[in-house]
C-alpha cells in the first residue's frame, strides 16, 4: 500500500535520508523508530508530499507520488506531529473543507462529519472555533480529518504527543480498527510502549539508514536478548549509552 524504494534526501552535503526502502502492506501497522534527527520526520514528510526527495520512488496505493501526486494523495491520510489548523474555522467547517479538498460528495459529507466527530469525542465542539481547542483536541480533530475520506494508507508522525490517557487509548483503538479494515498505517513514534503494543512490524532508522526491521520478537533476537523490553532493544541497536553518562553527571 505504501511502498518506498531507495529514497534519498540530501541537504547540501548532508544526507538526511540515505537509500531507505520500505513496504507497508494493507492492514499493517508499521512502526518507524529512531533517535532524534535520524530521518524519521523527513521520510514521513516526503511520503506525505511535503518534501521533494533527492532521488528514489514513493508509491501510494500503486500511484507514483512524483508522477500522479493527486491520485497518490487521495489514497493517503496524514497526521502531522504538530496540529496546525485554521484557527478561525469551527471543527465542523474544518472537516467539511477537508472533505471538499478530497473531492467527497456534498450529500454524504454531513453524516460523515458527525460520524468522525463522534468517533473522536469532539461532537459537542462541532460549532466551536478551533482557536479555543486544547492541543489534544486539535490533534484529535486532525485525526478525524485524516480518516474522513476513508484513506487506504495513513501516515502518522508522533500520534501520542499532547494526548491524555483517554485520548491515547482512543487513538490506539481507532488505529487497530482501521488496520483491521485493511488500512496501512505508517507510524513514527518515540513512545516505544506504543510501538511494542500496536505495531505488526517496526523499522529502525539511524543516521538516515534503516538499520533493523522486523516484528518486536525479531528485533529482540537481533539485539541478542529475546526477553528484553523494546526500550533496551532500541537503545542497544541505536548505540544509546547516555544513561550511564547521566549517572556520572548527576
Amino acid at each position, binding site marked *: 500500500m505504501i511502498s518506498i524504494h531507495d529514497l534519498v534526501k540530501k541537504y547540501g552535503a548532508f544526507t538526511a535520508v540515505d537509500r531507505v526502502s520500505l513496504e507497508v502492506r494493507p492492514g499493517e501497522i508499521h512502526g518507524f523508530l529512531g533517535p532524534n534527527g535520524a530521518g524519521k520526520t523527513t521520510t514521513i514528510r516526503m511520503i506525505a508530499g511535503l*518534501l521533494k526527495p533527492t532521488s528514489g520512488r514513493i508509491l501510494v496505493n500503486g500511484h507514483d507520488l512524483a508522477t500522479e501526486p493527486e491520485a497518490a494523495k487521495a489514497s493517503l491520510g496524514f497526521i502531522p506531529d504538530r496540529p496546525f489548523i485554521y484557527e478561525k474555522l469551527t471543527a465542523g467547517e474544518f472537516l467539511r*473543507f477537508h472533505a471538499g479538498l478530497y473531492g467527497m460528495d456534498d450529500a454524504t459529507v454531513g453524516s460523515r462529519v458527525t460520524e468522525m466527530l463522534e468517533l473522536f469525542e469532539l461532537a459537542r465542539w462541532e460549532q466551536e472555533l478551533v482557536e*479555543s481547542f486544547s492541543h489534544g483536541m486539535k490533534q484529535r480533530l486532525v485525526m478525524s480529518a485524516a480518516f474522513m475520506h476513508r484513506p487506504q494508507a495513513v501516515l502518522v508522525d508522533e500520534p501520542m504527543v499532547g494526548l491524555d490517557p483517554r485520548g491515547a487509548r482512543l487513538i490506539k483503538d481507532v488505529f487497530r480498527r482501521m488496520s483491521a479494515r485493511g488500512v496501512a498505517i505508517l507510524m513514527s513514534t518515540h513512545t516505544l510502549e506504543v510501538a511494542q503494543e500496536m505495531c505488526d512490524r517496526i523499522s529502525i532508522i539511524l543516521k538516515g539508514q534503516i538499520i533493523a526491521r522486523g516484528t518486536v520478537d525479531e528485533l529482540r533476537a537481533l539485539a541478542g536478548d529475546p526477553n528484553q523490553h523494546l526500550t533496551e532493544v532500541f537503545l542497544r541497536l541505536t548505540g544509546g549509552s547516555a544513561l550511564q553518562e547521566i549517572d556520572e553527571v548527576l
Partner: protein
Amino acid sequence: MTQPFPYLLLPSLWASRNRARRRERGDGTRAAFFGIVGLGVAGAIFSGAFWLTVQLGGFADFGDYLLRLGLSWLFLSFLSFLAFSGIVTALSTFFLSDDLRLLLAAPVSARRLFHARFARTVGLSSWMVVVFIVPVLAGVGVGHCAPWSYYGLSVLAVIPFVAIPVAIGTAVTLLLVNIFPARRARDILMLMGLLFAGGLVVLLRMIQPEQLLRVESLPDITDFFATLQSPITPLLPSFWAAEAVFASLQGHLDALHMAALWTTACGLVVLVAAANERWHFTGFSKAQEARKRRFTRFEMLTRAARLMPMSPIRRHILVKDLKIFLRDVSQWSQLLLLLALVLVYLYNFRVLDLDRNPYMSGMIKNVYAFVNLAMAGLVMSTVCARFVFPAVSAEGAAFWIIRTAPVSLRAFLWSKFWTGFVPVFLLTELLTIAANHFLGVAPFLRVVSAAAVFFMSLALVGLATGLGARYPRFNADNPSQVAGSYGGVAFMIIAVLFMILLIIFVGWPASMFLWYSANPRLILPAQTALLGAAGFLAALVLSLSTWWFGMRSGVRALESME
C-alpha cells in the same frame, strides 16, 4: 543581587541585535529602500517645517502667534494618537506577550516588571511620533534661528509629553482587561481605532483644507486655527509642551509648563505603577482564560458559493478564505479604513473646481482622467499588497493541509487569484467610473479607462498572487508584516513601474485621438493611427505578460517549495 529593571529589557535589545547580525536574502535591498524613503520623508518634513517657519517669520508678531498655535495643534494631534497607541501597545506588552509567562514565573517584583514593561510600551508606542516630531522641531529651530538651548529643552519637553498619554493609555488598558478578556479588548480597540482613523480622515477632508491655499480666503486662516482652540486646551499636556517649546524658541525657559509636564508624568507613572501592582495579575489571569468568543457562522456565504459556477475545490477554498477573513477583526476592520479613503477619493473629484477656467476645463478634465487612472492603479496596488499578496502566507502553519491534499498547487494558486481578482476589479472599476462621471470626461476616455482597469486588475492581482507565493512568510504574525516583507516591497516597486508604463502606453494614443477629435479640420495621419494602435497593443501585451509571468512564477515557486 537583584538586577535593576533595564535588565528585563535586554532580551528585546539582544533580539534586535541578532536580527541585525543575521542577514537574510533581500535585507540589504530592503534596508536601502526603506532608508532612502525614510530619509526622503524626514528631509521633506524638515524642509516643510523650515519653509513655513521662514514664511511666518515675515509676519513678525502675527507669524509668531501662528507658529505658537501651530505647535499647540501639532502636539494636540499627537496626544490622542499617543494615548490610543499606548492602550494598544500596553495590551500586548502587559498582557499578551509570550515572554510574560517566563517573567511572571520568575522571582521578579511587580514594580520592576512594571517599569520594564512601561519603558517598552513608551518606546513602542511613541517611536513614530518621535521620528516625525524631530525633523519638524529641527526645521522650526533652524528656520527661526533658535539658540542651542532650544534643542535640549525640546528634548526635555518631548520626553514627559510622550510618557503622559502612554501612562494614561496603560491605566485604561489595565481597567479594560479587568473588565473584558484581553483578546476581546484588543479586538474592540482595534475596531474603535480604525473607525476613529477612518472618521478622522473623512472629517479632515470635509473641512476642506484646500481653501487655506486660496488667496481670497487668507483672513479666514486665523479663524481656522482659532476653531482648534477651546477652553480646556490649556489643561492639556500638548499645550504645556507647545508653550515650553515655543518659549525655548525665543531663548527662554518656561519653567511653569516644563514643571507641569514633568510632575504630571512622574505622578502618573507612580500612580499607574501602584494600580498595576494591585490589578495586573488579575487581568493577566483573565487573559489566559480560554476564549468562548461569539462568531458569525456565515451560512449564507456557503449557500451563495454553491450557486457560483466553479469547481468544488475552488468553492471550498473560497469559502474557507472568506470565513477566516471575516472572522478576524484585524483583517476585515481594515476595510473600514479603505472605505474611508475611497469616500475621500471620490469626494476629491466631486469638489474639484475645474470650471474656474472654462477655456481649459475640457482639456484638464481629460488630463484628470489619466490622473484618476494612475490613482486607481495606486489604490489597486495598495489593496493588492495588503490583501492579495499575503493570501498564500495567510495559510500559515496550516499550509500542510493543502500540500498533502489531492489538490494541485496550480489550482490552489488560481483559486487565490480569483478570490482576489473579483473584489479588486469591482472596487477599482467602480471608483474609476464614478470619478470619471464626477469629472465629466469624454466618453471615449471613459471606455479606455474602464478597459485599462480590467487589464490592470488582471496584471496586478496576478503579480501579487504570484509574488506572494514566491516570497511567502508563513510565520508572520499578521498580513501587514507579510506586505512589508522583501517580496511585498518588490511587488510595490514592480507595480508602480507597471503603472507608469501602462499609462504611457494608453495615455499617448488616447490623447492623440482626443486631440484630433477636438480639431475636426485636422486629419489623423495613418502612421500616427498605427502608432496609437501599437500603444494600445503594447498596454495589452504588458498587462497579459505581467499577469502570466506573475502566476507562472508563483506556481513554480509553490511546486518547488520544501
